[in-house]
């Protein structure tokens, strides 16, 4: 049963076409990875799927709800946005408490303690989010997305700013989420992590999905790694790509 579907999805910003004819489907219990170079349309797609943006054309459905029901979508899912932007003048503890109160989840104190503990933020619980480091702010954002244990997690660059210890810890947690029958949809530039975690991937380039499926399905040759696949799909289609050398 798909938890995310899009058909012929398009989004324009003035003259710029950020998404063109995007069609994909993510099944329940999948760990789905969305890859693409900077400006390919990943964040635009994530924003549509999470009810933050309306498509210009086509259809999108998340947990059975369309972009016309953004509150309904956000209630059912957990989202980590691209930028770590917790509230400036609330402490880490208060931020998580606020999320719990907005989402009307029970056992606020126990949940907050659990996630502060998970990300080793106990000693930072009384520090304003403004005064946390980038990595700590990212941990607070992750905790806010996980705290209500949603059926679907949509994560935009969740590993960014995390040290190797917490990258590993997060990886294990997400694997556990999928093992428990829940779904993860993740955008990432860290191909190594995507290769390790994702059961299926899609590559988006210049607003179009240029490949999608299991890694085995999109490999052209035996042993071709995800990085090679990515380079082939992106650079192969981009005539003016600079092939690893600085442009100009």
């Amino acid at each position, binding site marked *: 049963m798909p938890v995310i579907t899009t058909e012929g999805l398009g989004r324009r910003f003035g003259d710029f076409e950020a998404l063109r004819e995007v069609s994909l489907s993510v099944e329940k219990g999948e760990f789905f990875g969305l890859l693409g170079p900077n400006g390919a349309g990943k964040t635009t797609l994530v924003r549509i799927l999470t009810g933050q943006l309306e498509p210009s054309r086509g259809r999108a459905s998340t947990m059975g709800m369309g972009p016309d029901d953004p509150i309904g979508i956000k209630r059912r899912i957990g989202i980590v946005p691209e930028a770590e932007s917790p509230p*400036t003048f609330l*402490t880490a503890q208060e931020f998580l408490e606020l*999320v719990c*109160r907005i989402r009307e989840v029970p056992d606020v104190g126990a949940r907050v303690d659990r996630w502060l503990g998970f990300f080793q933020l106990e000693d930072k619980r009384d520090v304003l989010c403004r005064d946390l480091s980038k990595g700590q702010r990212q941990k607070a954002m992750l905790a806010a997305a996980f705290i209500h244990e949603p059926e679907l997690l949509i994560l935009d660059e969740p590993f960014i700013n995390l040290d190797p210890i917490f990258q590993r810890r997060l990886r294990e947690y997400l694997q556990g989420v999928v093992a428990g029958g829940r779904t993860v949809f993740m955008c990432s530039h860290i191909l190594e992590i995507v290769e390790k975690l994702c059961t299926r991937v899609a590559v988006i380039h210049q607003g179009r999905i240029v490949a999608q499926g299991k890694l085995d399905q999109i490999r052209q040759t035996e042993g071709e790694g995800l990085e090679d696949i990515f380079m082939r799909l992106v650079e192969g289609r981009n005539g003016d790509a600079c092939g690893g050398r600085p442009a100009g």
Partner: protein
Amino acid sequence: MLREEWRLHRSFVGAVGSGFFPVMIFFFSLVLAATSPVLLRKMDVSLVLLVLHVSAALYGLGVGALAQIGEQVMTRRLGQVNMLLQLPALQPVRFRTVMGVFYAKDAVFYILYSIIPLVGGIAAAVPLSRITPGGVALLFVTVLLTFMLGMGLSFLLSAVALRSRAAAAAVALAIAGLVALVWPLRLLVPGQVLLPLGYWETQNSLYLLSAAAFALLLSAAAVLLMKERFAPPGRRFRGALLETERRFAFSKGLSALVAKEWLELRRSGALGPVFSGFLGPLLGVYAVIWLFRSGLGLPLEFNVVFYGGMLGFLGLMTYSWLTNIEPNEFLNVQPVGVDEVVRAKLVLYFLLTTPVSLVYLVAIGALNGECAYLPPGGPRGPFDHGLRRGSDRPHDRAACQHDALRRRGLGPVRRRHRPAADSGHAGVLPGPHGLLAGGGRAGGAVGLPPGGLEIPPGRHRATLVQVGLRYMKSRGRPGWEPAGPQPLLRTEDRSIGRSSRFICLRRES
């Protein structure tokens, strides 16, 4: 920096709103200057110059104060490095240098944005008035210097306050003392404090030179005293969200968001500036009008309804600041509607401003003797005894007033087909000495029929009562100084309508 300032203005009120302000100032000053031949028949030119220069000084002070609030809020909104003012945090440049440029930028921006349109409007009216081009140029210099003195003073106060609040309070007290020497003590004349005005009083260029030197001195002192400051040290707060939420439980589903807004406002340090940014100008407006009316004897007819309008205007600015304290980006990924966020901010806005607004309006109503204006809606207010309730339609209100007069034996009343503001007999309310009739501007406030009401001549007398006393005294007209209620004029005398606020109508014996 100028471009940044303009974009900042546009981000608050849009390009049209930002562009409209100087145009409005230009036309306002054009109209005033063009009608100056008429205005100056009743007003002394020195009084006009005083008003203009005091306003320029206050505007300069205000620009400095707003820049302080703006800088604080924008730093929070955009982070520590986005504004050019934050360059010293990352680049090898001293904060004082950037602050000096920032100060110069503010001066240039506001001169272009408001002083030049103001003087430009007067210049455009030269062919229509007796003002000479040389006079306009001189006015530009003196207004500019006055504005710079106000702005320099404000920046100096900010710089001193960053080092020591007590020292800043001492400077503020010294300035207040200087003003007190002019008024009410009258030991100095205004031109001795507002040096550019002194030039107009004495034609001595030394005043202009001294003003320019003082403006430079204040600015230089402000820049030199500015502290090198970067990100403040991290602060810790014991979890207070849930407890605060309980306090706002009356806002039901919004309580968590209201609690968040409240904590952010308090911890950001914006509560003081936002609160004083609302209360300060309110008190300032009243103080200036009171000063001009009581101290200088100017006939400024601003009633409590005008102050109500000011509350709305300044309230809008306060709300605008509230919405700019925190970008709230994280709420984009939470199941919260924009309407809920706006409503939470409105709850906080009302909690912050309502007590101040209420006390302010009641105090001004009491001071001006205009408490009768306070209950909005006229016929439904607590002062409407004897009037029929339940309808706001104009013809019903007229009927109510008609009935009230009849019951008191003052009828018949017939409708007058002239605008009510011109009539001497407008809204009618029962008072301790008979029926109170609001005349002139007051009529509009108590609710009068579209055509106005006319009480037939010879049937009753008009008596000035307490509500109007203060105003009449300030006008100092012979024959308008009642020692207690006394017969004044017959109602057919239309001068009542133009001159009185309230009269008491009595049946003639």
